[in-house]
């Protein structure tokens, strides 16, 4: 496959990563080359093969649905770039 610049822009938007316009072309080339390389898998016959989703052949363990941790918001917020009154602060998302 060969990704065009619009597709790269769309992927970057989906991934929420700003990519400078002058880097799009190089990136398109790199990504196309990697995707072209991984497409070798099309040659493998996987008829009737179940996808492997985990190495561990076990049932996911379940714990009791109870609160076991918490009540220290100041520690949770200590690493926030912006916090006030026990909340994270982000740019305004609702227009008045």
């Amino acid at each position, binding site marked *: 496959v060969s*990704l065009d610049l619009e597709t*790269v822009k769309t*992927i*970057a*938007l*989906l*991934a*929420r*990563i*700003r*990519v400078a316009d002058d880097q799009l072309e190089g*990136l398109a080339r*790199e*990504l196309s*080359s*990697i*995707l072209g*390389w*991984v*497409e*070798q*898998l*099309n040659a*493998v016959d*996987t008829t009737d*093969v*179940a*996808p*492997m*989703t*985990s*190495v*561990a052949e*076990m049932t*996911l*363990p379940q*714990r009791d649905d109870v609160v076991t941790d918490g009540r*220290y918001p100041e*520690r*949770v917020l*200590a*690493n*926030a*770039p*912006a916090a006030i009154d026990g909340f*994270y602060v*982000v*740019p*305004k*998302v609702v227009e008045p």
Partner: protein
Amino acid sequence: VSDPTHLTLADARRALASGAIGAVELTRACLDAMAAARGLNAFITETPEIALRRAERTDARRAKGVPLSGLDGIPIAIKDLFCTEGVLTTAASHILDGFAPPYESTVTAKLKAAGAVMLGKTNLDEFAMGSSNVTSHYGPVKNPWGPAGDGRDLVPGGSSGGSAAAVAAGLCFGATGTDTGGSIRQPASFCGIVGLKPTYGRCSRWGIVAFASSLDQAGPMTRTVRDAAILLQAMAGHDPKDSTSAPVALPDFEAAVGGDIRGLRIGIPTEYRIAGMADEIGALWDRGIGWLEAAGATVETVSLPHTRHALATYYIVAPAEASSNLARYDGVRFGLRVPGATLDEMYRNTRGEGFGAEVRRRILIGTYVLSAGYYDAYYLKAQKVRALIARDFREAFADVDVLLTPTAPSDAFAIGENLDDPITMYLNDVFTVPTSLAGLPGMSVPAGLSRRGLPLGLQVIGRPFDEETVLKVGSALEAAAQFDARPRRYRGDTGVDSRRGTS
């Protein structure tokens, strides 16, 4: 003890137990060695205050005759991918600027509870994505075996390159690493040390910065096989906080070291003799086969037919999982924030500036292969091929007890080499990735020197949760190889790399 940093971990353990040396003395020797070797850039953060405080407590406990464990007072280094409470944890990424976790990873908490002394956090490829350590936001690590004859500095391998360099240069008695596609084993091979990736599920992933959750696994990096067994014992074990942590009992790993390998069946996968393999890698492999035969093992050829598709499978599965795991870096809860007029713009600015080129590349690949219309063609297909790769191993292990392969296709390359094309760099992991996809234990043992005088490792691969046989065979290789070469920049050997540290 003249220069205690030259001791193995097992010897340091004995010296502490007998009172021949104190933990503070041992720790100071390591801190001095680290200061003299700062030019290697092996550490992102040094933690001398924490180290000395813990060592003082060890000495107090030992004076009273109540050590926490055999590891009590042993100085070790921690890959900067493990969250350490109150200590900067970066994953070598700009996007985690200033992040001091409010909690301790399970593996480092276990090491702490055993009394191990943390010297600092080691450098790595950004988010553990790389095979050379050059993608670190904190700059590349230099391999202590370098520079090469042409004067160029060499990579230590990656992603656990700082840990490998620190162990090889005698700055610590062991280090933690993590391995997603070879990140413990390939740097171990490049730096002439032992690196063990345990079975997936053996060590808890809780508190380790996630890269690809179905593949990530922590393990020990040390100078000897016995040391790896000792360190693994303290790192491993079931943890309810990691749902993929295996609820299985731990054997006594150290007891397996030096065991009899007579009658063991060693498998040699034909598909690993790849086209264009360097002569010296093939020759080393043949020597390894001879050593194991001489020690009484039987050797037979096995086939792992889907080997040649492992790298492509990995470079779909790992980026897909990474793109999902790394969605959490959004400039809201921790680390870097680059302002934007809207929330969305803030996300995009932060992630655009915070991620390096390789991480960005993998997130974009992962986003693409998981996106609507492409999921089946790429991701689902890769999961199916992964099932075939795992089946190949299961069938091989019906006939043999372990597999023997080279660890990496070459010796250490120069910093800046292999950068033109991402796929060239990915090929470094050709022998380690299949094991990761199948979740099996694999260990690299230093086995010889290349023509350029650089270390080369051999890899022993075992059945799930059979690290004991891996350690047993690894120690037989170690005994036969008699690998006692030391890097040129082994502590104090040259002033070149100490300039930055002492100025």
